[in-house]
């Protein structure tokens, strides 16, 4: 960007949408000029219309305006109209943040005007510390997409990317494409009428992949090293024979699938006994039968079969899988029809606890019932294998014990993800190995062998895992995102799923991978700030090498250089600012978001002396959920106290404790921090940011005591985007609480 050398500051106050009726706009202009020190201040009755926007554009073009504060609506509104790529822009939220939330009536005129004046002061203070982000454009970046895993998900992802015009490198461990799907006799139907099992089609898909000129397939290969960052992943692909190929890739789709749960871990359900097989075992028998009568291993034709659902799944004892694998009910239904389609006289019983057939599986279930498959709601307690198998179970409808005889018993055992190394285990092992533990050194080597990606990140060789060892992803809000930017998980490595879901998943992950390489080329961030051109920089001369930023970055974006200083890999960065919040010496900043841009806003607020009995409460609200919830409160005209001053932050993780101490030192009476839900079922858009903030704030009590303040003066809250009514209640209750405790004794010292 060729911004002029001398900055020129301008403020624009909009009087539309009722702002002019409720507020004294000329006074706001005066404040922007005198206190905000804006060189140019204008007001407009309809700032976001073509004429208002043109006025600002003209000032930028003809008057050399480089920095502007727009005092109008929330920064979440009219983003397109107020987009001026060459200028630094701050927004003072007078509409959603003031006139819509402060109670009606002239008795509130004074506090309403004070609130608006503070927001204008804050907007002016913020913009003066902002720079126009230039973007992190790199000279050359690869747009090739690496797909790890040649199963159904991997092949689908590779084809999706190749058909969209991208080069693909596909790495498959075994000697052929197809993965688990090649073991199947038939698959569950994907399309209407959902009545009969269908040909699998894995071979056709593999042929399509092999024939695609944009896809380079590496068979018998594993990834032995992944270095770099999105746009410049240097990947070493080692063949079984020992030869190593190198690929420069822009992004990665990890589709490493699953392993079936070991049936031998289920001796009580006959695991390991003759004529007790898992679902994969039955597929093998069905393949061998090739449409004829299905025979057992001993060659006897199967005349009766029992399918035991949830075998070693949904386990509450902690011995087996705690989760439901989602596909097994439909799979057993499919396998029961193998028998019924061949010979309707074969007795087939599916013993289930809760039959779960997602998608259109209900039609398939009905079709199997129509074919005469018997469904028994029961829980198997004991399976005896051998020549005549027996299933003892509790009938859950009739509430009594019973048993069935069968020639063959099939256990639905579920999926175990192939997600590589567990990073917690890795970190512990590496720490022990570094302190000289020989056993740990050997274990480290073993862990490296099971690693999928062998990332050279300081945080460990694979992506972090979620509950039960699945690759971390938020399976509702942003399903393919992992905590390793540019690396996307697809298929059963991410969560248990069936083939149709895996197909959709792979397509989604391929699109994310494409988005990633395109964003890198434009120097932009990835989800959830995909438009963002800013990136973090550190003033290394002030760095104390405490390593908090490298440890706390949720995305593994920061390595350490040879001198043990933080080394930012900007392409891995999601711009959450957790590093900035972590830094005790405040050397990390973004061009348009820093300790100063927020710190100056905090200091810009006019703190009335304590005899005025007007408390001032700072709200640091996450821009992803909490700030929209506050805006929504305004849109719904819910009113909250005019004593609060809200500042949006990129993530609660970016909150530096200096802001809290500065606020309390300068006489604020309380601080409310609002972030997303943390923990295993997190809603934090940066996964760990909110958690970090809560952790840091759990230690702030000492600081408060040193200042001689009550611990209630800092509150950390979880707020969801739907909490618009709750957030109003929280604010009003907190204001009452602060009034009860009394105003801060720090006023006037700041």
């Amino acid at each position, binding site marked *: 960007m060729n911004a002029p050398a001398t900055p020129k500051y301008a403020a624009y106050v909009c009087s539309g949408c009722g702002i002019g009726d409720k507020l004294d706009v000329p006074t706001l202009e005066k404040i922007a000029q005198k206190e905000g020190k804006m060189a140019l201040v204008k007001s407009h009755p309809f700032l976001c219309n073509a004429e208002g926007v043109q006025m600002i554009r003209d000032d930028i073009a003809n008057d050399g305006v480089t920095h502007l504060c727009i005092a109008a609506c929330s920064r979440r509104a009219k983003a397109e109209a107020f987009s001026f790529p060459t200028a630094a822009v701050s927004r003072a939220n007078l509409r959603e943040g003031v006139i819509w939330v402060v109670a009606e009536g002239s008795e509130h005129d004074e506090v309403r005007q004070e609130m608006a004046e503070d927001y204008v002061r804050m907007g002016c203070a913020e913009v003066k510390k902002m720079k126009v982000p230039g973007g992190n454009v790199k000279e050359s970046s690869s747009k090739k997409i690496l797909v790890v895993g040649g199963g159904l998900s991997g092949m689908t992802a590779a084809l999706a990317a190749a058909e969209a015009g991208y080069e693909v490198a596909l790495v498959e461990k075994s000697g052929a494409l197809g993965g688990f799907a090649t073991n199947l006799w038939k698959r569950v139907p994907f399309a209407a009428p959902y009545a009969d099992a269908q040909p699998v089609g894995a071979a056709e898909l593999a042929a399509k992949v092999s024939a695609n000129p944009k896809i380079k397939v590496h068979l018998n290969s594993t990834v032995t090293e992944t270095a770099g960052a999105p746009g410049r992943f240097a990947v070493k692909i080692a063949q079984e024979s020992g030869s190593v190929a190198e690929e420069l890739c822009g992004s990665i789709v990890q589709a490493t699938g699953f392993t079936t749960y070991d049936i031998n871990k289920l001796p009580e359900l006959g695991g390991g006994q003759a004529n007790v097989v898992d679902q994969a075992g039955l597929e093998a028998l069905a393949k061998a039968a090739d449409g004829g009568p299905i025979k057992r291993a001993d060659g006897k034709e199967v005349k009766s079969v029992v399918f035991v659902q949830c075998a070693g799944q949904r386990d509450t004892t902690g011995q087996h899988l705690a989760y439901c694998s989602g596909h097994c009910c439909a799979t057993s239904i499919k396998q029961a029809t193998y028998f019924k389609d061949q010979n309707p006289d074969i007795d087939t019983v599916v013993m289930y606890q809760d039959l779960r057939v997602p998608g259109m599986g209900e039609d398939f279930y*009905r079709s199997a019932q*129509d074919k*005469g498959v018997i*469904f028994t*709601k029961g829980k198997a307690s004991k399976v005896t294998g051998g020549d005549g198998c027996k299933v003892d179970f509790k*009938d859950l*409808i*009739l509430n009594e014990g*019973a048993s069935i005889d069968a020639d063959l018993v099939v256990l639905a055992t579920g999926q175990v993800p192939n997600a590589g190394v567990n990073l917690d285990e890795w970190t512990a092992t590496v720490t022990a190995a570094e302190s000289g533990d020989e056993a740990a050194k050997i274990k480290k080597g073993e862990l490296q062998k099971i690693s999928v990606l062998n990332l050279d990140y300081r945080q460990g060789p694979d992506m972090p895992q979620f509950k039960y060892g699945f690759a971390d992803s938020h399976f509702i809000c942003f399903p393919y995102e992992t905590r390793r930017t540019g690396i996307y998980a697809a298929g059963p490595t991410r969560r248990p799923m069936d083939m149709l879901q895996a197909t959709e998943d792979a397509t989604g992950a391929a699109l994310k991978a494409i988005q990633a390489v395109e964003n890198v080329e434009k120097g932009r961030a990835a989800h959830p700030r995909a438009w963002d051109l800013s990136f973090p920089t550190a003033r290394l001369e002030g760095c104390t090498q405490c390593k908090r930023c490298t440890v706390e970055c949720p995305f593994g974006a920061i390595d350490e250089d040879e001198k043990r200083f933080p080394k930012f890999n900007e392409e891995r960065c999601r711009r959450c600012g957790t590093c900035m919040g972590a830094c005790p010496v405040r050397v990390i900043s973004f061009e348009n978001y820093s300790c100063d841009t927020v710190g100056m806003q905090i200091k810009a607020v006019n703190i009335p002396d304590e005899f005025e009995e007007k408390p001032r409460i700072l709200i640091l609200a996450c821009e992803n959920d909490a700030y929209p919830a506050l805006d929504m409160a305004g849109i719904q005209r819910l009113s909250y106290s005019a004593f609060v001053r809200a500042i949006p932050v990129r993530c609660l993780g970016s909150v530096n404790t200096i802001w809290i101490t500065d606020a309390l030192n300068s006489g604020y009476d309380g601080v409310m921090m609002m972030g997303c839900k943390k923990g295993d079922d997190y809603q934090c858009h940066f996964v760990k940011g909110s958690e970090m903030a809560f952790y840091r704030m759990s230690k702030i009590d000492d600081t408060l005591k040193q200042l001689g303040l009550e611990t209630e003066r800092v509150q950390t809250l979880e707020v969801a985007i739907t909490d618009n009514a709750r957030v109003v209640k929280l604010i009003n209750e907190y204001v009452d609480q602060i009034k009860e405790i009394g105003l801060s004794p720090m006023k006037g010292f700041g």
Partner: protein
Amino acid sequence: MTTANQTAIAKYKNSFLKEVEANVEEGHWVRMCMQCGVCAGSCPLGNAWAHPPQELFMMIRAGKREEVLASDSMWMCTSCYNCIVRCPRKLPITHIMHGLANYAHRLGIAPKGQPTRETATLFWNNLIKKGRVNELTFSLALYFKDGFVQGIKNALNMQAVGLGLVKARRLNPMEILGGHGVKDQAGFKAMIEKARQIEDRKKGFAK
């Protein structure tokens, strides 16, 4: 005495479901139940059933022949059709209940003295005499089904109602002498006989 029952047992051995599918009206629907329990929750007489429909279906699949056929549950059905309307799997539950009751009755293993069964039997026997229900003899038969003394008591209890009906010309005392019937008595008898033959053949009772 229960040769029909013994024949059925021998024929279907341990597949009671197949027996139901073959012999019970709408019995082929039993396999389609998904055990949601909406029928049980919808039945206005639900509390009176030892086994609600969904449970009966499960028992049929589990081969509990005696328990199902000797049960008085399906006799509790009042044909309100709530279950049919609500069943997500569109099972004609009311019809299946009547089918099961009828099958158990024909086999001679339905519960003895079950009021619905007795009433239905009296009604049918009354009807097929002349092709018209003789309300007077039907009522009397009902009153006296539990013996002479109880019959007199029942009749005295209903005296006012009966006289009212007579006054309103809704009940003809002369019906006691045999009453009215359809015109073609011989044709009617032949039709009933033919229907029975067809049903026996379909439900495995043909001699």
